[in-house]
């Protein structure tokens, strides 16, 4: 919200305080100043100038060539505004001036061949309004050369303050001034009004009835007769434009002015447009259509709180008035509404309509129910001054159930327990009093106070503690330099995934973090997708069911920028409903699982002076998975299954299984999947279910003494039928070998014509040893020959080299 420092100073005596000090105090009391516009600084170079002469630019139809008198010199200036003319006083930016809009500096520049020495300005260029239809024309009486800060009284400092939702009271100048009064320990001075009322009693002119007291607990009104609707005086217009508001007329402007002064939104009705001069506040029973004063037709849900006259709605309560009762230039008699509405009713209507106004913003946060009448009187007073209208005698104030001030206790011991230091009772008393709390009782232990109705955020002791802490200054709370450490059990639920990350990076993988929000198409590839009710776009309307699609988008993007070689991993959650038709009503209706994805594509090694180019293949992803499992001691715990053929993602793949259930799956991605991501290269990946992986019980590691006795190795190679696979042979050798056979490894594999069609050769190295003794050649030789024999028989294989 915009706040003017000049305006604030009308309520607190801070004449000798700089704007920097005020800003600093506001920041440190919870009213965060997000932006500051110091007009003295911004407008320091602009001056009043006199247009002495205007000619058409010889080379451009729409440009004028003006001779401008700046009081010091005469300059030739080119102006594009249609309304510029000789004899005008204008706002002039000499060469070197920084223009607020667009933040550019005026330089001497040739425009269509003629040099221009400065700029005649329009309102929007100075950010004084949004009018760009022509230049600003100033009062003739201003002398050329006068600084604009003086001529237009642009001497304010305007602040943009971020008001947190708990502080509706600070949505006004008096509210902010109240905090300043407490912070600087000065008095808050609220203007007193002496109303000059006519002899006509208000009751003879209008009446108010509340039908829905829950949503409208209070409705106050004042009536003025014989007003003259016209433009507001300069001072009022400036107040409003400084805050970014557009002046309309002296009636509407006053209502806005009072709202920014007291925080009470007001609405002025043309009393003669109210049928039977009657206001009835009630909620709609059925869907209603209504035209608001911005000339838009609004559809209103049943239950919308409306201000009505004797026959029809005239305003959406607390949000916006209606076109049918709007103040016009011919309006003579007005009724000023100053009401207190239920916060949630206004919020609901504002949300449903998608219509948030200065008024609704304040009502839904909570205004001061005690302040309605005062604000109405203040407005009546000002309007009568500015419009010549007469204030009718008395007021209307329907307020059957008075909202009482609540009481709250504060124990000084509690204050210390929360903050960690002692604040003296006197200081506490001063702070609370300055903030408008009425201290009803005070002892050495505690105090009881009545909470002002403009502070709906305060009800409890802790709320009072916060008030005291923030006004006394958080900087005064000590900063401890030692803490106690608990010696109990400490958990680290991220330990396992941290370990997985360490392994992945040691294997050369780079970590990605992808957006779990995906398109319907990619989320549909596997699982039962979960949709977002209010997505930003169709691309992000579903939660991912696998880490693979997100990773493929990354592969695709990297290939597009010329990076084709990647080994990537991601650890992240995937989401799936427990059934396609399931409605999520509890945590058991869906899965949120943590997954690990390893992905490789492109080259595993580059062509170099001592290396040749190699591309990743199926066996690379397989060996990465093996290395991974070995590192977490799960290499001999899981079983493999291998598949050729159809899967959603893969054409060649394998799974890792624990107790018959699949806990990881991966291989070569199918072409059609890759095509969806515009990838023309082979991509291999493997996805693990971390939640399951984490739960597999591990045997604790034991030390193994290094071998003391020599190993004996033997090699053999066989020609097999090509249908025989490696794992079959391996399993057979392991099973047939004795305890002495400790390892079997494949060292050569080939298929070619020389060994015959549909044949392949596999060569193995066998390693024999015992941890207890040295083996003798004969026993190894015997077992080796036996193995040759049984392999030959079992697979109808032929020993090579014989």
């Amino acid at each position: 919200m915009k706040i003017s420092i000049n305006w604030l100073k009308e309520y607190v005596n801070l004449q000798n305080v700089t704007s920097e000090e005020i800003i600093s105090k506001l920041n440190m009391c919870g009213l965060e100043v997000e932006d500051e516009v110091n007009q003295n600084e911004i407008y320091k170079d602009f001056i009043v100038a006199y247009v002495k002469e205007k000619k058409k630019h010889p080379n451009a139809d729409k440009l004028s060539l003006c001779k401008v008198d700046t009081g010091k010199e005469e300059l030739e200036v080119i102006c594009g505004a249609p309304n510029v003319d000789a004899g005008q006083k204008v706002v002039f930016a000499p060469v070197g001036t920084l223009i607020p809009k667009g933040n550019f500096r005026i330089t001497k520049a040739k425009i269509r061949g003629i040099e221009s020495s400065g700029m005649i300005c329009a309102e929007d260029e100075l950010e004084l309004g949004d009018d760009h239809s022509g230049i600003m024309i100033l009062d003739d009486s201003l002398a050329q050369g006068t600084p604009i800060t003086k001529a237009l009284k642009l001497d304010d400092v305007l602040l943009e303050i971020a008001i947190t939702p708990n502080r509706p009271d600070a949505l006004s100048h008096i509210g902010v001034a109240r905090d300043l009064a407490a912070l600087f320990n000065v008095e808050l001075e609220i203007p007193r009004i002496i109303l000059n009322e006519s002899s006509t009693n208000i009751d003879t002119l209008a009446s108010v009835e509340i039908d829905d007291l829950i949503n409208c607990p209070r409705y106050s009104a004042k009536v003025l007769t014989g007003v003259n609707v016209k433009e507001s005086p300069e001072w009022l217009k400036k107040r409003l434009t400084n805050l970014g508001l557009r002046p309309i007329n002296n009636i509407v402007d006053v209502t806005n002015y009072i709202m920014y002064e007291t925080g009470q939104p007001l609405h002025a009705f043309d009393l003669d447009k109210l049928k039977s001069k009657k206001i009835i506040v009630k909620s709609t029973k059925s869907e209603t259509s209504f035209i608001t004063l911005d000339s838009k037709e609004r559809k209103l849900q049943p239950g919308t709180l409306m201000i009505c006259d004797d026959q029809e709605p005239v305003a959406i309560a607390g949000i916006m008035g209606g076109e049918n009762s709007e103040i016009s230039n011919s309006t003579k008699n007005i009724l000023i509404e100053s009401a207190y509405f239920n916060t949630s009713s206004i919020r609901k209507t504002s949300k449903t309509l998608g219509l948030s106004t200065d008024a609704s913003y304040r009502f839904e946060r909570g205004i001061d129910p005690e302040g309605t009448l005062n604000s109405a009187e203040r407005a009546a007073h000002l309007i009568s001054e500015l419009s010549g209208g007469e204030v009718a005698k008395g007021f209307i104030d329907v307020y059957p159930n008075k909202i009482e001030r609540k009481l709250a206790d504060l124990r000084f011991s509690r204050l210390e327990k929360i903050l960690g230091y002692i604040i003296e009772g006197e200081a506490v008393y001063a702070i609370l009093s300055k903030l408008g709390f009425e201290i009803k009782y005070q002892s050495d232990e505690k105090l009881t106070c009545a909470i002002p109705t403009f502070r709906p955020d305060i009800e409890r002791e802790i709320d009072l503690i916060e008030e005291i802490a923030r006004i006394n200054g958080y900087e005064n709370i000590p900063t401890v330099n030692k803490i106690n450490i608990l010696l109990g059990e400490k958990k680290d639920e991220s330990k396992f995934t941290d370990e997985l990350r360490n392994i992945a990076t040691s294997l050369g993988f780079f970590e990605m973090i992808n957006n779990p929000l995906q398109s319907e198409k990619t989320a549909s590839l596997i699982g039962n997708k979960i949709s977002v009710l209010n997505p930003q776009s169709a691309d992000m309307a579903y939660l991912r069911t696998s880490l693979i699609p997100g990773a493929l988008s990354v592969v695709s993007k990297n290939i597009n920028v010329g990076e084709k070689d990647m080994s990537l991993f991601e650890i992240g959650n995937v989401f799936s409903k427990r059934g396609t038709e399931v409605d999520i009503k509890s945590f058991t209706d869906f899965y949120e699982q943590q997954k690990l994805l390893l992905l490789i594509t492109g080259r595993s090694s580059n062509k170099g002076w001592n290396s040749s180019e190699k591309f990743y293949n199926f066996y690379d992803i397989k060996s990465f998975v093996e290395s991974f499992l070995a590192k977490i001691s799960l290499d001999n715990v899981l079983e493999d299954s291998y598949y050729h053929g159809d899967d959603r993602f893969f054409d060649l793949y394998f799974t890792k299984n624990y107790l018959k259930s699949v806990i990881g799956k991966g291989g070569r991605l199918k072409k059609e999947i890759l095509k969806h991501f515009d990838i023309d290269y082979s991509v291999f990946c493997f996805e693990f279910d971390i939640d399951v992986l984490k739960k597999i019980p591990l045997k604790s590691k034991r030390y193994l003494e290094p071998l003391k006795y020599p190993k004996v190795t033997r090699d053999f190679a066989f020609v097999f039928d090509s249908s025989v696979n490696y794992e079959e042979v391996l399993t057979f050798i392991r099973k047939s070998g004795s305890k002495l056979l400790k390892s079997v490894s494949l060292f050569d594999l080939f298929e070619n014509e020389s060994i015959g069609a549909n044949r392949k050769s596999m060569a193995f190295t066998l390693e024999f040893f015992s941890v207890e003794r040295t083996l003798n050649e004969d026993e190894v030789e015997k077992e080796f020959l036996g193995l040759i024999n049984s392999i030959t028989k079992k697979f109808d294989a032929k020993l090579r080299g014989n």
Partner: protein
Amino acid sequence: MLSERIQIISSEFGIDISKVKDLKDLENLRLKYLSRNGIIPLLFEDLKSASKEEKPLLGKSLNELRNYATNQFDSLKENLEISSSAKEDKIDLTLPGIIKTLGSKHLLTQTLDEIKSIFKGLGFSILEGPELESDYNNFEALNFPGDHPARDMQDTFFINKEFLLRTHTSPVQIRVMSSQKPPVRAIMPGRVYRNEAVSSRSYCMFHQVEGLYVDTDVTFAELKGTLVSFAQQFYGEGLNYRFRPSYFPFTEPSAEMDITCYLCHGKGCKVCKQTGWLEILGCGMVDPNVFGYVNYDSEKYTGYAFGMGIERTAMLKYGITDIRVFFENDIRFLKQF
């Protein structure tokens, strides 16, 4: 006399060997002194003609000379052979080494790791919670009333009326407190979602670290001390800090913590929007209403909570100006850190 010649030859050998530069010189040295017709064997010939009385003594010194010369020769030969083999094996030592690529964790993970290790040192556990949360855990139990404008502070992705994508890591506080009795001291990192338009400054998801400490005597002063200690460890000693009052429904009093802008050192620049300060986290004392939801006795226990965005922290620390960089996963970015 022979004895004099032995001495002379001994010193001449010493001079000659000191001039040897390569194996060729050494071979010449050998030919001159040690070969069959070299000076030393010839001296042995001369010994034959020496008198009986002189023989044993001269023989001894002659043997010493020969041993000395042979030893000197052998050790020099060994040294020269080693250096000459290196010279002869003319490999180009300036050729590039063979690079083994190490992978790396995402910069956000690295940043989080650093934060975790600091809080582990301060005695915090590390706990986690789900991203798809209930409205109850994410809002209600954190003292966000159903129709309160405070809910507007966090634009939410809803799954339905009761479930949503968590907008902050604070629901993990509720999960932790609902499942254990005080004392509780833990940080809770994780991914959160906000329905905000994607731009250089905001993304539809990001990461936070939540912190919570509840015990019988936890004060705002301790909150300040702990967070200042964290900031000094993370951002470096000697920084200036301030705590400003703020508002979060689940803490009261609430604060935001600022540190001096690391770029301009407090003078004011674009990054700190001319304020000289950078906001690094939100914090406060746990609101008694939250204790009510988890059945903690708010008269007996007090606690503090804090939360910080990891992206923002990493952006500040590494000078990243566009949050989207983190989630594009451009391999050139990933390899930088």
